[in-house]
């Protein structure tokens, strides 16, 4: 599927480092990707790979220090550079253009205000509504995200709601200003599987209806396969593979992606022994030199001790950071 739409969000060489007593943690270390209007892009990786720091960097939500977004990093929203833009402009963009929902809605909802007050605040600040208009809009939004009896729920406090309902409230809040991009960081990880299904279905529905793009951050390959159009796989602060969701799952190019998929229990052969990736995720203060996956990789060979750039593969936006990538997947030369 070729796509000529200009990217909504364009990230180039983003480096977010943390300056700590233990050393410099290069949590995000030079990543690039695009999100097009209306698409769902998944960033997938294990704990410590930098996926959450990436999403927080996009919104300017990291305390600096200890975090620092390094020189040369670029995040453009429809051409407008967001790195280094003032807090005032960033505030205007957050909510209006980009919204975010988190894994644990309880920690992002204020426990001493009713859910209605919290959503109404956003409406009054960002959309200039008066009290009465805002209340009517909140009821409409709560109904839209599937909360039954919205007229009663509007006056309830976060602790009175179940986990699934709280996530619905967060989504209602995120949608209140009709953003063009919704960043969802592990939005269903804390939820049970049947509630997860409800929330994923709701997100897909809302995305279609409002035409917004979604950046989904998750460790769960199943969730990625269910909802994403394109996928970015991260390992040790870098992008190791990109491609369409179909390409990534059918023909994983990077040994790490392949390893992740092989370590999942198979539906077809439930008893099959799992293939595990040996070792553990490295420490961001001390990333391995050369290919960062080298020590855990069964294909590691001479040459892997040198740093590896992303290699463009056949297919739109398809790339892998591996010099031993299957030749049949390669179309051309190394990326700049």
């Amino acid at each position, binding site marked *: 599927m070729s796509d000529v739409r200009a990217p909504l969000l364009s990230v180039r060489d983003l480096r977010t480092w943390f300056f700590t007593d233990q050393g410099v943690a290069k949590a995000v270390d030079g990543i690039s990707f695009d999100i097009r209007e209306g698409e769902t892009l998944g960033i997938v990786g*294990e*704990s410590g790979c930098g996926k959450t720091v990436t999403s927080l960097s996009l919104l300017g939500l990291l305390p600096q220090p200890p975090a620092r977004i390094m020189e040369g990093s670029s995040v453009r929203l429809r051409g407008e550079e967001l790195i280094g833009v003032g807090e005032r402009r960033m505030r205007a963009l957050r909510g209006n253009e980009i919204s975010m929902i988190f894994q644990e809605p309880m920690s992002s909802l204020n426990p001493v205000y009713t859910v209605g007050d919290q959503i109404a605040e956003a409406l009054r600040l960002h959309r200039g509504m008066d009290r009465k208009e805002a209340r009517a809009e909140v009821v409409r939004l709560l109904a839209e995200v599937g909360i*039954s009896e919205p007229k009663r729920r509007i006056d309830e406090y976060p602790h009175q709601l*179940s986990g*699934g*309902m709280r996530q619905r409230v967060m989504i209602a809040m995120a949608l209140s200003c009709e953003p063009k991009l919704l960043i969802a960081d592990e939005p269903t990880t804390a939820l*049970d*599987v*049947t*509630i*997860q*299904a*409800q929330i*994923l*279905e709701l997100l897909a529905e809302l995305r279609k209806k409002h035409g917004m793009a979604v950046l989904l951050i998750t*460790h*769960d*390959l*199943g*969730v*990625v*396969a*269910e909802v*994403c159009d394109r996928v970015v796989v991260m390992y040790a602060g870098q992008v190791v593979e990109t491609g369409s*969701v*179909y390409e990534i*799952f*059918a023909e994983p190019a990077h040994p790490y992606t392949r*390893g*992740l*998929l092989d*370590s*999942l*229990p*198979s*539906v077809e052969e*439930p*008893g*099959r*022994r*799992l*293939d*595990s*990736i*040996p070792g*553990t*995720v490295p420490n961001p203060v001390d990333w391995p030199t050369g290919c960062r996956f080298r020590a855990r990789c069964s294909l590691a060979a001479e040459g892997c001790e040198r740093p590896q750039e992303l290699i463009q593969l056949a297919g739109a936006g398809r790339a892998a950071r591996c010099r031993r990538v299957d030749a049949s997947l390669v179309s051309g030369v190394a990326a700049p």
Partner: protein
Amino acid sequence: MSAATGGVAGRRAHAIDREAPPLLSVRGLEKHFPLRRGALGRAVEHVKAVDGVSFGLWRGETLGLVGESGCGKSTTGRAVLRLLEPTAGEVHFDGMDVRALDRERLRAFRRRAQFVFQDPFGSLNPRLSVGAMLEEVLQVHGLGGPNRRDRAVELLELVGLRAEHIDRYPHEFSGGQRQRLGVARALSVEPDFLVLDEPVSALDVSVQAQVVNLLEDLQAGLGLTYLFIAHDLALVEHVSDRVAVMYLGRIVEIAAAADLYKEPRHPYTRALLSAVPRPDPVGREGRERIVLEGDVPSAVDPPSGCPFHPRCPHPAKDDACRSLRPPLEGDPGGHSAACHHWREAAQIGT
């Protein structure tokens, strides 16, 4: 294939003798927690965390216990080992009446039946080196003789760690290694039965597979019996010979893993399985998904009749569902469901 092994034969390498009496037999197990105390300090309400659970577990077998948070799976595991005193019901282990054991005999029982926790860090003493921790357990149980340190090294090697790890402290280990330590500690008393409570859910996917493989190797090598508690349905299918699904403190369906995943009979099991995201994008649009309405009701005041009836999408739902508690029943092959309409459900198919 003999009738004794049923649908389980061939799926796993080891044979399970179902003609023999079960190693663990649980009947009508209940665990109620007092919730609110009245003026005279009396409990006026109870959370019925486990509300009549029965199952058998045969030597060398893995029974997977699945369900969503609050369904009582973890409490069941703890009550079976008397880490929590059951409110009612029977637990028999290799002929022993577990609920009747006095202190001393309970300790002997715990030497044969061990618990592995989800969070390995929270269950390891941060001030004890790995060697000291293992030696302490051995000493408490009078095991290992004068060469406890040698035995500790042996245990580390058994779970895939190295002898030089013996003087390190828990914080020096990664999550996967800590879970290996948790397993080593459980195995130090040479048990035949382990309750594994979400043993890999705190771990990254790539490390999960390492620990799952370790658990399977240990089971095959030592002839262990597992009660494997988890919320990850794909993982439970992978490790289990049989699987029990819990909802609101009760088992709603139990069967050989292959049968339960292929032909779920309880509407809740069907919804649960259809909700699992599959790591395969091909055909995702056409996939049938049963999305349940609402949330799980409170275990303080569970719905009358079938506890699942308020959320049940079964077309044949009727007055019986609202008023009568369905028994766990099924065919002689060992596939049982607690649903008045399990026969129709079996026919509707997937």
